[in-house]
């Protein structure tokens, strides 16, 4: 069961599924809001992904540095200290991480922000509130 109370790193194992035949895809969810972390984790868990939720870009990079099995990153845009855009840039600049698809979420629909993220290599930009159908649409398109 996914548990996202508090800050820091929280991991959860979901039922098998989410990939075309192997272990469930490991998705890293990044959001400084505990409520939004809970909701996106719930959506991903219901889609049978394995979810780790963290509260900052810094913690996301720490986890990405220590684990090799993250298959997708979904991150909020607007976070203190390191925005989702800055996290995206760091991922795409890293030879180790750049292949990991990154999806950005934001509560604000700002066209220039969306363009900037897509140009930097984001797979998609989802306007909150994110729905399970958004996740299905994006992940089905992005993942093999």
């Amino acid at each position, binding site marked *: 069961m996914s548990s996202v109370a508090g800050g820091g790193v929280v991991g959860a194992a979901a039922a098998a599924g989410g990939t075309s035949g192997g272990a469930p895809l490991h998705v890293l969810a990044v959001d400084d809001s505990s409520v939004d972390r809970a909701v996106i984790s719930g959506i991903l868990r219901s889609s049978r992904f394995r979810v780790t939720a963290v509260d900052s870009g810094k913690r996301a990079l720490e986890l990405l540095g220590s684990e090799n099995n993250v298959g997708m990153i979904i991150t909020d845009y607007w976070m203190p200290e390191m925005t989702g855009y800055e996290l995206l840039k760091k991922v795409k600049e890293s030879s180790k991480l750049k292949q990991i698809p990154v999806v950005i979420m934001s509560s604000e629909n700002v066209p220039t922000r969306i363009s900037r993220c897509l140009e930097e290599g984001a797979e998609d930009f989802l306007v909150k*509130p994110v729905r399970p159908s958004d996740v299905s649409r994006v992940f089905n398109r992005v993942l093999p």
Partner: protein
Amino acid sequence: MEYANLRRQAASLKRSLFDQGYLDEQFCQVEDLQDEASPNFAEEVVSLFFKDSARLVANIEQAMEKYPGDFNRWDAHMQQLKGSCFSIGASKMNNECTSFRNSCGEENAEGCRRSFQKVKREHAILRQKLESYFQLLRQAGPTRTATRPGGK
């Protein structure tokens, strides 16, 4: 029979929360994420919301006292609270947060103060109503599926 009655009361309370504008469809989306693995998911998320929102309200209050006229700072704090309201479907609170942010944009301190009082009031009301709702659900016991107002 008693459990069925409690579930009816819970459904009726939820319907009234929607009818009176306290909640919107997003709340149903959160409830829809409940399953056998996470049967209390909605209550957990709402509990997180009230823990988080109490902190954010305190931050805003402190910011308004310590930084008078710093509308950018006030707005930044309220943006966080508004985001949380949005995520759980707390519609009335969300609207009051928007009013506050509009007043920040107009640099209208009195407008901000009035809106903030409304935010706090709606926060307290919503907490009380949702606590009642989840208490009824706990007493009623587990159900197979969440329902939308109107019985869908």
